[in-house]
């Protein structure tokens, strides 16, 4: 087995900003990321969707780079840029020919230092975000299924349960004052990590980080948020109307183990045994063999996150679209049978070992790309950031596979018995709307 040996060097600036450099000079391109330890889980009450709206505001202008300057400077240097809001982090990233590296760092430092936005920018991006929600959720078959459907059913703590994309009333209520307050609270250097990957050497990377970021004043570290969930004692269920799609959908979620625990490694293998594509038990049984469902997918922290990028309560999710001639109850019964069999009979090493090979292979692909072909090493950047912010150890990228490769069949069965319990789960049915006869 290939032992990973990705070069990783890290340090901290006096203002608390952590810096991680991972050089690879093979191609003359560099990827830069700045990750802030704030996601949509802990946005302010009455301001659902704000963390994501705020992410848009970070492209609207900073102290020395006004509206559109960020985008123009990166595109005109031959690069691409974007940002995204997750449960527990928000990222901003650029991939550029490496001769533009210094410029990218200057821009990221400028918006970490001071956001310079006005009411017109806020109104503009509020409109843009509403169209984003419409195109991705409200006007899409199965939009938000199940990533927006399950949290309000599964959770009791508002932080975990609210509408992450935002109710339009809450988006309308957001003010410029909210924007600056959020920036002050969560965007301090000590709440972030800077990542520089690709065509740069370590000393140069550190030197540039120092030059552009060291002068940013430190700020108070935000108080840790309460994202704990009370224990669940009964199965939770909900129904959501499906406006466009013709097939009924069912999604089921079971609380996933905490990251970096032995149960987490075992649950990852359990998840792949159940949801690992067409060879996974759920797809094979429900779609290929019994032909009750026409699609079946799933995963830990699925579908808007993965095994590595959560740092609080989340679910192992199964998402099914089934044939209308089967009822929801029949479909759930067939699904339960698959889980019961796993709990009762476990898994053989003949089944588990290939799952590990596939897991390792997927991990390599994630490191290299993971975000289309135009952001080289997006996946490596994402892992380095999460391991730094959540676990304080970017080097886990090189060693994390070991824990998964050591999982035994007994451990998979035992974690299955522990988490796949009906009183523990949440379930949502997407019910197609009744259409009047045409």
């Amino acid at each position: 087995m290939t032992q990973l040996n990705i070069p990783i060097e890290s340090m901290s600036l006096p203002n608390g900003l952590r810096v991680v450099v991972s050089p690879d000079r093979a191609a003359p391109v560099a990827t830069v990321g700045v990750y802030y330890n704030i996601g949509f889980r802990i946005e302010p009450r009455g301001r659902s969707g704000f963390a994501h709206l705020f992410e848009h505001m970070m492209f609207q202008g900073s102290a020395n780079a006004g509206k559109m300057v960020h985008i123009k400077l990166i595109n005109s240097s031959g690069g691409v840029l974007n940002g995204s809001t997750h449960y527990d982090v928000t990222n901003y990233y650029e991939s550029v020919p490496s001769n533009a590296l210094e410029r990218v760092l200057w821009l990221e430092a400028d918006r970490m230092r001071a956001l310079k936005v006005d009411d017109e920018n806020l109104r503009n991006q509020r409109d843009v975000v509403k169209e984003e929600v419409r195109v991705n959720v409200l006007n899409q078959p199965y939009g938000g299924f199940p990533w927006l459907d399950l949290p309000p059913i599964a959770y009791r703590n508002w932080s975990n349960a609210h509408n992450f994309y935002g109710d339009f009333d809450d988006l309308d209520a957001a003010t410029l004052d909210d924007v600056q307050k959020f920036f002050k609270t969560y965007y301090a250097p000590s709440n972030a990590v800077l990542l520089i990957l690709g065509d740069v050497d370590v000393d140069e990377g550190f030197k540039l980080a120092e030059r552009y970021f060291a002068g940013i004043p430190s700020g108070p570290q935000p108080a840790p948020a309460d994202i704990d969930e009370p224990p669940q004692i009964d199965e939770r269920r909900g129904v959501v109307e499906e406006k466009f799609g013709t097939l009924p959908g069912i999604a089921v979620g079971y609380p996933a183990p905490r990251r970096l625990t032995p149960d987490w490694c075992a649950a990852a293998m359990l998840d792949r045994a159940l949801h690992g594509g067409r060879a996974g038990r759920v797809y094979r049984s429900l779609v290929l063999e019994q032909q009750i469902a026409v699609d079946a997918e799933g995963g830990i922290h699925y579908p808007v996150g993965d095994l590595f990028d959560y740092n609080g309560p989340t679910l192992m999710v199964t998402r099914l679209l089934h044939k209308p001639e089967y009822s929801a109850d029949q479909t759930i019964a067939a699904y339960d049978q698959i889980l019961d069999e796993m709990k009762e009979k476990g898994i053989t090493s003949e089944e588990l070992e290939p799952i590990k090979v596939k897991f390792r292979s997927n991990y390599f692909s994630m490191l290299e790309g993971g975000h289309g072909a135009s952001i080289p090493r997006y996946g490596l950047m994402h892992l380095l950031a999460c391991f730094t912010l959540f676990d304080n150890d970017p080097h886990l990228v090189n060693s994390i596979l070991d824990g998964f490769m050591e999982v035994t069949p007994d451990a998979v069965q035992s974690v299955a018995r522990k988490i796949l319990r009906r009183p523990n789960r949440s379930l949502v049915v997407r019910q197609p709307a009744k259409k009047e006869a045409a």
Partner: protein
Amino acid sequence: MASAPRSEIHTTVPALSPERPVIWPPRGRTTLSNGLEVVLVESHTIPKFTGQLFFRSGNAVVAAKAPGIADMTATMVRTGTTARASRQIEEDLRRMGADLSSGAGADTSVVSFAGLVDFSNGLLRLVAELTQQASFPADEFERERRQLVEGLRIERATSGFLASERMRKVLFGAHPYGAISPTEAQVESYRLDQLQDFYRQYYRPGNALLVMVGDFSPQAMLAQVEQVFGSWAAGKVDEAPNPALPELYGRRVYLVHLPDAVQAQIVVGNRAITRKHPDWLRLTLANSIYGGAFNSRLVMNIREQKGYTYSPRSGVHPLRQHGYFSISAAVRNDVVAATLSEMFYEVDRMRSTPVGEEELADARNYLTGLFSLGLATQDGLAGQLATSTLERLPEDYLETYRERILALTAADVLDAAQKYFDSANAQIVVVGDRPQLETQAALFGKMEVYDAQGEPM
């Protein structure tokens, strides 16, 4: 010169440093005696490899007989061979740490695969088996047929699909490019022997291209490829028909009614050119300035200034025989007319005024930079090589791409916009809730209205 004082460091944009040249990885290109073209490239980013086995025949070549049958054939090849049942295939893929997908577009069919280099021989053997010994099991066929039908029903409720479908029909009419997917009735009438015929005729080495990129030595990999694919019998293949295209005079509006839609999907389009056309790069650059980048005029206007939409873009779409240009955005219902006005305003500005030197240089840099980024991953490299080889572009197409882009002028951009952004004869498709949109849409030309099934209303 002394370095700048600290305050200036923060207020002044750093200049670009000198560019490091793009170094091309060693690559081998050869044709086996049975006609199979092979392109192999080293890339040692991860201990994996990725490959695509293309056949230069897709849905277009059989459109008159059974629309979509190439895609269904490609779907079926992974469901059974004379040596392995469906379940065995899936488990073998997992054992090798491999991913595999298969499908067909208008012009090509393709089996794509990626896996750990330790298992490259096993994966190549499986790909060879799928493409030479597929068994087309009848029960798998009925299951896939049902899944396809259910998928089509969901697509008929998706505004993006409905917009593309109508636009292609308008631009290409009865030509095979006029349909992007089969109807339910057509799928219901598929027969296994049609799939088998397609497979026998077109899955042939003389019709095929194998592109592989990864952590291997091209020489050693070529030996494996010869061993696995060398005995595949050649065959003779015919070209897709190229019937006449509809005449398009004047702007026309096509409104597709999707009841209860809360947003309008707009697509404006006209026919353009293929990648082989001498104007291709000029058009690519013009498109990039118009709406092909975040920093483009369309995005600045209707997103960053006006907030009409999250997702505006324009694109040039090359097919083998023809191509087209499109402008699209999903907008809120009350700004359909305003959005179309801005789209045409920006089109007419591109057609009437030469682009300034700075904007031109920025766009050239964007395209050359994007190209370099695309070479830094195995998938990106494979994609670039597949495009240039499949389309039979000149041997040095990729190596000279950057310098040819950098040589383009404002006159080239103006010329391409005048020729290919056909403002006067643009075709307009709007998908959404009819009562909220039709008065606005009708302002832009003679209008036809369709339902989501494609029937006139």
